[in-house]
């Protein structure tokens, strides 16, 4: 599993960084970025799904 953030759609609600700081970081403007290449270790798959399901702007994509 991989996660992707559409940085044009992201408005900096900061939900993904709160839910899964292992997978997402935020830059100086509060925009979300994926950590590394966005690969999700098996034990973090639930958190990745939760982050996707809580993004108010639908800016996170999960690729399985």
């Amino acid at each position: 599993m991989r996660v992707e953030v559409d940085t044009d759609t992201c408005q900096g609600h900061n939900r993904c960084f709160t839910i899964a700081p292992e997978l997402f970081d935020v830059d100086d403007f509060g925009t979300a970025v994926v950590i590394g290449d966005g690969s999700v270790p098996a034990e973090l798959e639930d958190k990745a799904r939760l982050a996707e399901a809580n993004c108010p702007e639908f800016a996170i994509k999960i690729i399985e």
Partner: protein
Amino acid sequence: MTDIDDTHTDLYGPVTDWANDFDHAVPEYNERAHEIWAEFQATECPMARSERYSGLWAPFSHEFVHEIAYDTDHFTSQGVVVNTGRPMIEAPAVGPAPPITSDPPFHNIARRLLLPPFAPKVIAEWEPEVRRLCNDLLDRMGDITDGESIVDGATQYAQSIPVNVIARMLGFPTEDEELFRGFVHDVLERINEPVEERMQFMGLLDAYLDEQITDHRNNPRDDLTTYLMNVEIDGNKLSHEHVRGSIVLLLIAGIDTTWSAIGSSLWHLGTHPDDLSRLATDPEVMTFALEEFLRAYAPVTMARLVKEDHDFHGCPMKANDWVLLPFPAANRDPAQFERATEFVIDRQVNRHGAFGLGIHRCLGSNLARLELKVAIEEFVARFPSFTVDGDVTWSVGQIRGPRRLPLRVLATS
């Protein structure tokens, strides 16, 4: 402490036909908001209209609110607080309180200046200060006798938290707390007063800010005001109007809103003992509870102005009509949320729009979230059991929250 005068001129009178003579600034609206939204959401066209304020529309479905929030081609942010007037026709690109009143493309430039001081990691550093402030307020409530003492969760607690934090961030005297609350009340609640009256109290706010800016010019210090005075766009410092307008935004948007969210959350806990007990015994649930407070009791309804005549799903909107963006109603739309009208303290999937949707996402959302979380944590840690006991007064206008919230303390930690 003197109380803010809660009375307001009822220019248009009470509402009997919510669909065709809508008015969000009559006291009944915020008192019965959940009921009114549910009634609209059960109809085929969840849109209210009104000739009040020279033309006003109010959509109540998540779909409509989402669509308008994203549509900067047909709707302008030059006016975001519905009132009896209209912004100047030839308003400067920044609008009176940038970036909330700015449209693309200037909006992004103005917004990027303010994002870094409100970024999550910068705001996180304020946590100890907010916690200390909350505990000071709880201490100041004096001796509490379980079962007997009544404290006001709004006036003795919620309303003092954001005002103190934003005054410290801006480098303004915290003794002026009462004055700031007065300004906020004038701008956000006295909306159905004649334009001349509004011009007069906006003038007082501008004069106060001019004084603070001069003081910062003479004595620069490490705060947001000095930051705004020094920050540059393409090598140019901001105009005085831009600096002052941004401070107006921070002051107005940062106070009433968070205070309302804290107050509504305390109201919920004071009327839902099971949720209070869960939070008191299982503090970890706060991660989810925080977002559920924000969803179920989002305090902020924004507004837009229609740019040119526009047919919106069959609604004939006219240029210069106001359009409300009731994010709190969108957050309770059964078409978007399961068990939408229920408060589910550990709701896992919660794609709420309490901080708005699209390019105007609340700049201070990280600060608001921190204040709400810490305020509720500290209150519940001090008073693990309390109940609403007495008359609750709700605000009027676009920001919804309790202004009087008598809570009987049943247990002290």
